[in-house]
C-alpha cells in the first residue's frame, strides 16, 4: 500500500504518539472519577489539574480560566450563549461572514430567537473593514465573535486591533482560535479577548476534546447544566483521557511553536512550486497575514472534487471548497465572501501541513500535481473567463 501524504491538517490531525501514550492509561488503569473521595479517583483528579495547567500555559492564561469542552463547536456555542445570558438586556451580536458553521448557524438560530446579528463582510484578501465594525457596534452589542484564523484560507485577523474597538463599546469579545492555536503564539495576558475556543484534534490530540478560555471576571453561564464539574461551568463527568491528551498536546504544541518556521518553508515551497509550474493558478486570501501551514490555491477551469479524487490516487489528502465536495450545491461560503470568480471558486484546493509533513511529501505533490491539473483541463470545455454558451448555442441553431 502506498504511503498517505496527509496535507489536510486543518480538517483534523494525526494523534501524536506521545499524546496517545499519555492518555491510554486513563482508558485502562486509571478509570476513576476525578470527583471521587478516594485515592483511586483522586489521582485522576490530579492529572486533570495538570492538563489544565498545560493548556493554560499554551494560551498564556491562568488554570482557573480553562473550561474543558467536548469540541470546538461546543466551545463556540457555550461562549456565545454565555455572553448573551450574562447580559440579558443586550440583543445584538457581531460576527463575520467567514466564520465556522459553529458560529454562523448558531447566529442564524439566534436571529430566529429575536437577536439581531451583523455579519461583517470581508475584502478579496479575506480581511474585515474596521469602519464597518465600528459602524456596527452599539451599546446594545452583547458579543463580537471573530475567528483568529480562517480554516479554509488561513487568513489571520488582526485580533487585538479588533478587540480594542470592541472594548470601547463594552461588548464581550469571543475568538474562535481552533485553527490558530499551536500555529501562532497566543497570550491571553494583556489580551482584549474575553472568551477563546480551542479544539484538541487540530493539535494532535484526539477528537472529542476541546477547551474554552473564560477570562477571569467575565460572567459565565453554563451551556450544559449538571454537576459541579469545571467549577460549575460545564456539567458532565470529565472526559479524563481526552483532557490528559489535550494537556499533553498543548505542551507539545508549545514546544513546536519554536520551529513552526519549518512548516512555513515547506508550505512556501509547495505554493511556489505549484504557481511556477501550473498556469492559471491563484492563491486565495491574504498572502501575508496567513497561518504558516495553510495554502488555498484556485486552479481555474476545473472542479475541486475531480482534483481531490485524482490526488487520492496517489495517497495525497487535501480538501476543497467546491460545491461538489461539500454535499451542498454552493461552493464554500468563505471563498464566496472573498468575491472570487466562479472559475476559481469551484477549483480551489486547500493544502494544510503539520509538523509531521516532510519535504519528500511536498516534492511528491509537486511531481504529480501538474499532470493531474493538465488532464482535467484537457477534459474541460473552458479555458477563458468569458465563455458565453447560451449565445454560442443560439448561433448554432441559427446557422442550421
Amino acid at each position: 500500500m502506498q504511503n498517505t501524504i496527509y496535507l489536510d491538517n486543518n480538517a483534523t490531525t494525526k494523534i501524536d504518539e506521545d499524546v496517545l501514550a499519555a492518555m491510554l492509561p486513563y482508558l485502562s488503569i486509571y478509570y476513576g472519577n476525578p470527583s471521587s473521595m478516594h485515592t483511586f479517583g483522586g489521582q485522576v483528579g490530579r492529572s486533570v489539574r495538570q492538563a489544565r495547567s498545560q493548556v493554560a500555559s499554551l494560551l498564556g492564561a491562568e488554570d482557573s480560566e480553562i473550561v474543558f469542552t467536548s469540541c470546538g463547536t461546543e466551545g463556540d456555542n457555550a461562549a456565545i450563549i454565555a455572553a448573551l445570558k450574562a447580559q440579558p438586556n443586550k440583543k445584538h451580536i457581531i460576527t463575520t461572514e467567514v466564520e465556522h458553521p459553529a458560529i454562523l448557524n448558531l447566529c442564524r438560530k439566534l436571529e430566529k430567537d429575536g437577536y439581531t446579528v451583523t455579519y461583517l463582510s470581508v475584502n478579496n484578501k479575506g480581511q474585515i473593514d474596521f469602519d464597518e465594525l465600528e459602524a456596527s457596534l452599539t451599546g446594545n452589542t452583547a458579543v463580537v465573535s471573530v475567528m483568529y484564523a480562517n480554516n479554509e484560507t488561513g487568513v489571520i485577523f488582526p485580533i487585538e486591533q479588533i478587540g480594542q474597538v470592541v472594548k470601547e463599546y463594552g461588548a464581550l469579545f469571543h475568538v474562535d482560535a481552533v485553527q490558530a492555536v499551536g500555529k501562532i503564539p497566543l497570550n491571553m495576558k494583556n489580551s482584549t479577548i474575553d472568551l477563546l475556543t480551542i479544539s484538541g484534534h487540530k493539535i494532535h490530540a484526539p477528537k472529542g476534546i476541546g477547551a474554552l478560555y473564560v477570562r477571569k471576571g467575565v460572567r459565565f453561564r453554563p451551556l450544559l447544566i449538571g454537576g459541579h464539574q469545571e467549577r460549575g461551568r460545564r456539567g458532565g463527568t470529565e472526559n479524563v483521557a481526552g483532557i490528559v491528551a489535550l494537556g499533553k498536546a498543548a505542551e507539545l504544541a508549545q514546544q513546536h511553536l519554536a520551529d513552526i518556521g519549518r512548516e512555513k518553508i515547506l508550505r512556501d515551497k509547495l505554493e511556489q512550486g505549484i504557481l511556477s509550474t501550473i498556469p492559471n493558478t491563484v492563491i486565495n486570501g491574504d498572502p501575508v497575514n496567513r497561518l504558516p501551514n495553510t495554502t488555498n490555491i484556485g486552479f481555474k477551469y476545473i472542479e475541486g472534487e475531480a482534483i481531490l479524487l485524482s490526488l487520492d490516487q496517489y495517497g495525497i489528502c487535501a480538501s476543497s471548497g467546491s460545491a461538489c465536495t461539500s454535499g451542498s450545491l454552493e461552493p464554500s461560503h468563505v471563498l464566496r465572501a472573498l468575491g472570487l470568480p466562479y472559475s476559481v471558486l469551484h477549483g480551489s484546493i486547500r493544502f494544510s501541513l503539520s509538523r509531521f509533513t516532510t519535504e519528500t511529501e511536498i516534492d511528491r505533490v509537486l511531481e504529480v500535481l501538474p499532470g493531474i491539473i493538465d488532464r482535467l483541463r484537457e477534459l474541460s470545455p473552458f479555458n477563458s473567463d468569458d465563455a458565453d454558451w447560451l449565445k454560442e448555442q443560439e448561433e448554432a441553431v441559427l446557422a442550421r
Partner: protein
Amino acid sequence: MWDYTDKVMEHFHNPRNQGKITEKKEGEEIVTGQVGSIACGDALKLHLKIDEETQTIKDARFQTFGCASAIASSSALTEMLKGRKVEEALKLTNKEIAESLGGLPEEKMHCSVMGQEALEAAIYTYKGIPLDTHEEDEGNLICRCFGITDTKIKRIIRENNLTTAEQVTNYVKAGGGCSSCLPDIDDLLYEVANEKEKSVEVATQVWQNNNPSPTPAESTTQTPRPLTNLQKITLIQKVIDEEIRPILAEDGGDMELFDVEGDVVKVILKGACSGCASSTETLKLAIEATLKEFVSPTLTVESV
C-alpha cells in the same frame, strides 16, 4: 467521501471519447449540445457526428467541467450513444445513464440529468429546433438560484418517480441554493402525485374500456363540423398534454408534438417506457388510438 461505484471511478480515471469532433465526411453532420455553466459548478459540451442518411450517431465526444461523477456520466453517455439512431438516442433518460454506471449517489444524480440534457440540446440543434422555445424554457421559474422551471422539475419528478424536495435538489439542483423555493417544489411534487392518481382513472377509461359507444370524441370534445387546421393542432396538443403524457409519465416516458401534416401527427417519443422497438410500436398505436378517439378517426401517428 462519496460512495462511488468502481465503474464511476473507472470512467473518471479513464474517460472514453473526450474532446471535440473536428473531421467529417460528406453526408455527415457535427452538432454540439451544451448545458451548465462555470457558475453552476458543472458544465458539459457534447459533440455528436450524425450520418444524415441513416440518422445514426457515428461518433460522440465530450468536454466536461465538473466532479468525478459528471466526468463519468459524460463518458458513459458517449459510449451509449455511438451507433444509436438519433430518434432512439432522444429517448435516453438520465436514469439509464446513471444505471450504466452501476448507479450514482443520490446527491449526484444531477450529473446524469446534465448528460441527458446535453444530448437533448445536441439533437434539438441538429433538428434546427431553437432551444429557447423548448418546453422547459416556457415554464415558470421556480428555482432562481439555478434557473430551473416548473416544467423541468415536473418532468424529472415523473421520470425518476421522485417523492421529496430533497430528491429534486439532488437531481436538478433546484432548491439547493437559498432554499426559498422548497415549498414550491413540495407543491409540484403534490401536483405530479395527483396527476398520477388522475391518470390511473384516465388510463382505465382510455386504454382498457374501449367501448365504441359513446366515444369521447362524440360525447365531449369533437364538434360536428370539420375542424380548421389550427383548431385541430390545438386540440391534438391539448389531448397530448392532458390525456397522453400523464399516462406515459407513469412509466417514466414522455412525448412531444413535433408537427402535424394533414392527418399525419408527427411526435417525438422520449423516456424509459420506449426503450425497445416493440414497445415504441405499441406506444405509437396507443397514442394513435387516443388521438383518433378524442380528435378525429382519420389521424395517424408517426414517430420522428
